[in-house]
């Protein structure tokens, strides 16, 4: 890691990728240990996420350049860092830890997170705190150098595969709700963590309920100051909305590609009505793709703001309309469903599933990561500067709020 690295040009960066590949040939890797060593070396070379600082897996370069680095490394046969399994870790936990962590926390968590050695999940929502996340009731009580955590979390994607979680818990019930929260990094292997499947409308259980009973978290794994939990959670959620709504895709690289393929393969199913609706959605999907590209260019130097919320509104609507249209195009086949058996899919297991599954699963797009109704409030208040909603619980100590 040299001090001169910052300020590399794109060409210099790509040269550095070539140099790295010359020293670390992916073709020579045979064992899992060797592959992991290669991933650690890539992290140490600053080629993991180039927009992160030097020493933290990056080189302080524009976020958009990562695409070219990835393309080169993938072409050379680079090992996979389980990015599809660790979307919450990479998209949400990592930027939050980078933004608020101590140097010790950054040293401890970022590299194994990026390499996929440690998978992360998110312990935010609760049965009584959905859209109103700041009402979270999971309690964390200080006991010496540790916190003792009790409560119930819900809608936790991938908790059954996770090693660590980002956790929001109440550390002070005597102050108004936004001020009494703190943010923790929670070990999912703690004996007090009980993960139970939550079956959903698709028939399977992608999510979980997580019961926390006397879970002990060292104070060294608290992120940010005590009472700063809301601020940090908001930061995480802005990243989530970008992660969900702003993914980089080629044309027809998202759901529209699947539906267009069905259309091309089945001339016998075409009707003028379906054609018009497909073309409108094709345009909407392409405009969303371009908007995502523009948003990424805007963000190349900065942090995600509420603009991601607007993107996610489009993403949810288009996915839901498209998946509904797909069933109509499929006609008789649209009346069938693959399998209602209760199963435990991996995260992001949308691939290879049938249209009925997609139609049902994508209903979640306007609920998860902020409902579309809440996101419209976010856009209206934080981007457009319109007045906030009336809040009867804002200045009341959390313990006195009726529930």
């Amino acid at each position, binding site marked *: 890691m040299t001090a001169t690295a910052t300020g590399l040009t794109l060409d210099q960066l790509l040269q550095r990728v070539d140099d790295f590949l010359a020293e670390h040939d992916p073709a020579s890797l045979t064992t899992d240990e060797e592959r992991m060593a290669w991933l650690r070396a890539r992290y140490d070379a600053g080629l993991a996420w180039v927009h992160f600082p030097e020493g933290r897996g990056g080189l302080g370069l524009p976020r958009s350049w990562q695409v070219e680095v990835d393309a080169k490394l993938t072409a050379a046969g680079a090992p996979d860092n389980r990015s599809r399994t660790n979307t919450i870790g990479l998209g949400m936990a990592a930027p939050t830890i980078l933004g608020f962590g101590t140097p010790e926390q950054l040293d401890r968590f970022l590299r194994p997170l990026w390499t996929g050695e440690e998978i992360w999940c998110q312990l935010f929502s609760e049965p009584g705190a959905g859209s109103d996340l700041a009402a979270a009731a999971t309690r964390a009580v200080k006991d010496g150098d540790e916190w003792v955590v009790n409560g119930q979390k819900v809608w936790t994607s991938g908790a059954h595969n996770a090693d660590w979680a980002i956790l929001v818990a109440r550390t002070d019930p005597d102050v108004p709700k936004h001020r009494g929260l703190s943010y923790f990094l929670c070990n999912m292997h703690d004996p007090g963590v009980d993960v139970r499947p939550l079956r959903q409308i698709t028939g399977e259980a992608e999510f979980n309920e997580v019961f926390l009973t006397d879970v002990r978290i060292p104070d060294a794994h608290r992120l940010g100051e005590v009472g700063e939990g809301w601020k940090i959670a908001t930061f995480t959620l802005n990243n989530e909305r970008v992660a969900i709504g702003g993914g980089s895709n080629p044309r027809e690289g998202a759901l529209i*590609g699947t539906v267009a393929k069905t259309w091309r393969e089945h001339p016998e199913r075409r009707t003028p009505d379906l054609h018009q609706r497909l073309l409108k959605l094709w345009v909407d999907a392409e*405009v969303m793709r*371009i908007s995502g590209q523009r948003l990424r260019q805007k963000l190349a130097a900065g942090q995600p703001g509420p603009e991601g919320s607007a993107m996610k509104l489009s993403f949810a609507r288009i996915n839901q309309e498209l998946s509904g249209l797909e069933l109509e195009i499929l006609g008789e086949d649209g009346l069938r469903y693959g399998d209602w058996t209760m199963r435990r899919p991996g995260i992001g297991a949308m*691939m290879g599933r049938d249209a009925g599954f997609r139609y049902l699963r994508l209903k979640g797009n306007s609920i998860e990561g902020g409902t579309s109704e809440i996101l*419209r409030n976010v856009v209206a208040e934080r981007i457009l500067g319109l007045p906030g909603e009336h809040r009867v619980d804002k200045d009341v100590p959390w313990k006195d709020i009726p529930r």
Partner: protein
Amino acid sequence: MSTTPTTPTSTSTADLDLLYTELEDDLRSSVSALLGARCDEHRVKAAYDGDDSLGKELWPALAGELGLAALLVPEEQGGAGASAREAAVVCEEIGRHCAPVPFLTSAVVATTALLADGATEAASALLGELAVGERTAALVASFVAGPGDADGLGVRPGDQVRSVAGALEADVLLVPYAVDGGVELRAVPTDAVTVEPVVSLDMTRPLADVTVPEPTGEVVVPATAGVAAVRAALTTGAAMLASEQYGVAQWCLTTSLAYLKERRQFGRVLGGFQALKHRLADLYNEVESGAAAARYAAAAVAAGEDVEVGTAVAAAYCGDMAVHAAEEAVQLHGGIGMTWEHAAHHYLKRAKADQIGLGNPGAHRAAIAELVDLPG
């Protein structure tokens, strides 16, 4: 949450810069300053009562003082050698001010036709005159014609072409004569042509019916290249119109927003009602999406990459988007939005006419169906 990726279609996309360069920002500032000072909304309104003096003052200032007519003309032909990216910024500002100037019809559509492959020496000479603002041109085609109509626009002497945009402001018309072997574009001085003004839905882009005379004037694009020239002109025109539509929509959004922050009923500002907040949030999202689409089209035309799909997508999306924004502006202003006094109707009329102009959204979607292999 990702969904199934598939092989992209054969249509390749371009990795284009969708933001504004410093130069483009500077250009916007000067156009905005000039229009802000001189494009008074009461004088815009006067066009509906027969007073078209504002456009006659503004156009020489924009074309001459700011040199905007020269943007798309190459330097070696006396122009500024800029690109569609800069022209799009101008279109945004024209839309935002609802300015009654023939920038789109002369400095974009006619200019692009004259830049076609195979254009003659006479075309080059005319470009030089257009660039310095000495002359103003218009293509003789109905304003409804879009890129998909290009091969059906050839005319014969005696034909009447209805609803031509920019003809009233022009002193030279590019007439696409149908001849043996194709369509030949001739530069015909307007005094040789019957140009009859019509009462237009949008009087900030007044239309005229043009009666085609016997062939006269110099050939600027020969018969073999005419259809391609017209298609290129209408494609660039449609791409730039999307930026104008974005400008129109942005005025509607910001004006409605400002009004709802100030207007009080039931003891509260209207913008605090969630039903209205959500409508504005959706409108913001739609307008921002349109901004990205319009910017992509401009960058695509400038780079010569992914031009047809990029243009059709922007045109299909922004046409409806601007109309929606203008209709929302009228509704969200309540009674005042229905008055002659308020400017909202200038934008509604402009947006509606723009939606129909240079190919309507359905025509652009039909083009997409062919371009990306989604047959009906």
